[in-house]
């Protein structure tokens, strides 16, 4: 039930009274969404939508965090520590080493 789906805001309705609404495109499926909780979101932004309500504006910068974490692990590997992502970081047949943790 806590399903949240990211979609792109394609229109913000100028609400005169009541709740601010907008139109959100989920990869081709378009829905009317209540924007009251994320008034900072504008056309072109991505929002996380749950049961017809936008709950957050997805932070494009933070969205790279998962991949940055992996890249940083890769850089550790370049410093001679084990490398995630592929077998390239260590000789075939050697046992996996522990990362630089106690």
């Amino acid at each position, binding site marked *: *039930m*806590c*399903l*949240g789906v*990211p979609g*792109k805001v394609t229109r913000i309705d100028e609400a005169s009274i*009541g*709740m601010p609404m907008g139109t959100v495109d*989920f*990869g081709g499926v378009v829905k009317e969404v*209540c924007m*009251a*909780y*994320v*008034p900072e979101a504008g056309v072109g932004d*991505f929002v*996380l939508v*749950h*049961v*017809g*309500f936008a*709950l*957050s504006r*997805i*932070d*494009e910068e*933070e*969205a790279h*965090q*998962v*991949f940055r*974490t*992996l890249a940083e*692990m890769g850089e550790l590997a370049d410093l001679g520590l*084990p490398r*995630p*992502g*592929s077998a390239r970081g260590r000789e075939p047949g050697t046992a*996996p*080493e*522990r*990362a630089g*943790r*106690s």
Partner: protein
Amino acid sequence: MKFVDEYRSEEHARAFLEAIQRTITRPWTLMEICGGQTHTLLKFGIDELLPREITLVHGPGCPVCVTPIELIDQAVEIARRPEVLFTSFGDMLRVPGTRSSLLGAKAAGADVRMVYSPLDAVSLARQHKDREVVFFAVGFETTAPANAMAIYEAARLGLRNFSVLSAHVLVPPAMEAILGSPDNIVQGFLAAGHVCTVMGYREYEPIAEKYRIPIVVTGFEPLDLLHGIWMTIAALEEGRWGVENQYTRSVVRDGNLRAAAILEEVFEVCDRQWRGVGSIPLSGYRLARAYERFDAAARFAVATETAPEPSDCIAGLILQGRKKPNECREFGAGCTPEHPIGAPMVSTEGACSAYYLYGRR
């Protein structure tokens, strides 16, 4: 779809799996709170790819599963009234009550309709002024702002023919109940990213401190879960505890303050009965005094009789992470998604339905 597909990359998933494998030195038991996360873990086979040292137990984060059978019975009783147009999210319709589900009531002539958003129920109340429109307000903190807004809007519009049957539940008290149990086996939590999108994660900090446990706010895509598991394992291996946030693209520490303000306006915190678990103090919402007139249970004066659970169902143990669905003797035999005995087999977020759908027989 952007913000979905890239978090399903096999190459990056393998990188995380290797990182987890390199980090782990001994067995650990983690609980993912949210049933949506359970489904991702099983659908993508992550549970089977993780190192043997990791045991995942599935949390109570399925509102449909924890809604007490008495409340289903109340919903059915209200829905049967001739003046009532009863609305609900789809998941709730098939949950068996003592005698009938809402869908059973519909088949017997009740006007029961599925809605996508609680605002749809408000629209129905505006369209059908001669009917009593009741909305089954179920959900965790993720759904509460939507339900609260519907009530707030009904008040603003002065609707007299709209009410809600409230079955709201809150996550942190349930986590405390699990951690405080003498049988607890959970050593680290993946907290529910969408609950925290609304509420933030300040309220988890004292829990992490008190029980010296890592809690990692985690998203719902495969890479989110692998990242969250890696962060939790890293903390456990280093002997660290506290709250960390994996789902930074949606969650900030304070949550969504606008949503919190409406929740504060419309609801107040109350003790709540959890199906299969029991009563947990301060673990739910009821309508605040100023909105009490929208309480369907009071409006239709339905009785709250305790009802027995189906005797063959071990849903309570599953919801507390003490048994796996395939340890139930009814699993896949007497109990299937088509003919469910217990709620976790009905819900698209239930652990039993996940095990059944993805073949963990």
